[in-house]
């Protein structure tokens, strides 16, 4: 995260990390989650889902802070995030699930 000045308690503050789960086939491609993600975690995928829309895909999984904005803005109940366990080392990328329902 970019700070204008380094906060004094930056070592004490633990930034939460999130795991984004996308139900790809529920997506109608409105792009709200992509545009309004504060950390730009998501991007429009080039592939199509079963409905013929481009779903979002996670491109910067490590930047997710589990704000859950993608979850609450999604009109399709197609994306949600959960908190990753804080003890997982930052160097290990968070896994992100893409689920296909038939």
């Amino acid at each position, binding site marked *: 995260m970019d700070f204008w000045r380094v906060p004094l308690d930056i070592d004490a503050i633990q930034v939460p990390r999130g795991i984004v789960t996308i139900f790809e086939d529920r997506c*109608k491609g409105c792009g*709200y989650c992509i545009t309004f993600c504060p950390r730009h975690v998501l991007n429009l995928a080039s592939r199509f889902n079963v409905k013929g829309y481009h779903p979002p895909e996670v491109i910067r999984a490590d930047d997710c802070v589990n704000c859950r904005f993608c*979850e*609450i*803005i*999604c*009109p399709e*109940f197609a994306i949600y995030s959960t908190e990753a366990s804080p003890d997982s080392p930052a160097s290990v990328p968070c896994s992100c699930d893409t689920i296909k329902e038939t």
Partner: protein
Amino acid sequence: MADHLKKAGNKQVHPLDDMVRRDRMPHIWCPGCGIGTVFSACLTAIKSSGIDLDKVVMVSGIGCSGRAAGYTNLDSFHTTHGRAIPFATGVKLANPELKVIVFSGDGDLFAIGGNHFIHAARRNIDITVVCVNNLNYGMTGGQAAATTPEGSLTTTTPLGNPERPFNLPLLAYAAGAAYVARWTMLHIQDLTESIKEAMVKPGFAFIEALSPCPVNYGRRNKEKPLDTLTMYRDKTIIKNGASPLELDVDSRKSIILGKFVDIQKPTFFELYEKIYRPAE
């Protein structure tokens, strides 16, 4: 992993999947439509308010947002056009233990159902009304509605709407609502908090949620859904307690959001009990 991440077999479940009838999904709302977001805010509010879900009833009328009653897993009723509030009034008076939430659109609540709205507000019936305002009649093809801003292009006003729209919070305030708020579908956390607050508060509560209608209103007014949301972000002012007189929706000025009215007054049921069933 968080508690709500339930595993049904080997399948992952969205946190709101238990509130939604998955067999009816995908819903009919167009890509970019805000009704789904307002609906999910409503479900989140109901879920987090801690109210027993068996005691919550959702009533909706006709229109795109009227479909919400059929999509929720709560007890719900999809009523005739404009009559969501009379049904909700009946449900509430027959069983005052229930929390009744009316989820409907601007056309249903304020055009054909306008009279029911003002009289329910006047009587202070203890229901919560969530109005998804998409500024036109979306389901029938984008005709000018009672809430279409002056000058907007619609199917029936191809050169611009000559009418002035309703100022919904002012109407609710003037008719006697106990709680009046307005948010957009982008201000989801505020909207969710507002619905939650309104549900636990006794009295008639009205919450207007502005929402894009990309296929009808947006297309004719050269607004992509993302443009509408950017407008909601950049050209709205949050002003809690603002005078309802200044809340008209006009494309030439900023839209004012916030909680405008929050007062305590006896509900219809309380007054009825006091007069007709006085304690011995």
